[in-house]
């Protein structure tokens, strides 16, 4: 049997959360893979589905509560308007470093050849239909289908 040299051939990235920081982390990793000549596929499950939900993807927030890296007392983080303020500040910083917004980032991922899959179970659970989603998703898959997509030597899976 031929020995595999450890080269990464494909990244399978599972996004299960829709806070802006998680969504961006997943997108940057997928795009970064393609930029290095590595294949990339994304599986959006549970709240991660919001990142490809046509209407919701425009209104993703970062979490100010339960996020110790915000260095903010929990009580303050829970005040009305805090999430919106933190999100606004983060978006401003992102624009400064030339980070696209969520919709544009999806366009970039698609143009770069990243496959975007919605999780069937989560779609059913949230009563979403394909037409509710970003128009260029590649389809709706079961977990088993997604694993099959990842078959082959040099595939890595990442859960976010």
């Amino acid at each position, binding site marked *: 049997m031929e020995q595999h040299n450890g080269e990464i051939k494909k990244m399978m990235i599972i996004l299960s959360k829709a806070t802006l920081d998680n969504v961006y982390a997943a997108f*940057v990793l997928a*795009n*970064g893979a*393609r*930029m*290095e*000549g590595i294949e990339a596929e994304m599986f959006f499950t549970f709240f991660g589905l919001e990142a490809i939900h046509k209407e919701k993807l425009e209104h993703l927030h970062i979490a100010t509560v339960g996020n110790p890296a915000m260095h903010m007392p929990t009580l303050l983080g829970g005040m009305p308007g805090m999430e919106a303020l933190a999100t606004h500040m983060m978006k401003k910083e992102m624009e400064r470093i*030339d*980070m*696209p917004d969520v919709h*544009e980032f999806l366009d*970039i991922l698609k*143009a*770069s*050849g990243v496959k975007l899959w919605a999780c069937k179970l989560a779609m059913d659970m949230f009563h979403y239909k394909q037409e509710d989603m970003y128009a260029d998703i590649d389809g709706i898959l079961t977990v088993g289908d997604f694993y099959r997509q990842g078959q082959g030597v040099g595939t890595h899976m990442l859960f976010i």
Partner: protein
Amino acid sequence: MEKVIAGTSVKINEEGYLTEFAQWNTQIGTELAKEANIDMTPRHWEVITYLQTEFKNEVPLSIRKIGKSGVVDIKEFYQLFPIAPLKTASKIAGIPKPASCI
């Protein structure tokens, strides 16, 4: 280190990027493209010229900027330079490896 590419001795770094853009010429670009299994077409050269202009203007390159360049869209960029497009195209163009994560 020094390497002879297309009959000219040029300075390159350990990853094969030219370290002195002034030493670049189209024969070197063509040769570097061959090493990356790319046959250069006029369309490839348009993109290379754009990258070199951005480099001369000290504009940092990113895939997003390529998409907004008006020269090439991201999809075609990947068709022209299928594997690691920005890195490959930068190498052919004789400019440094892009430092951006996006």
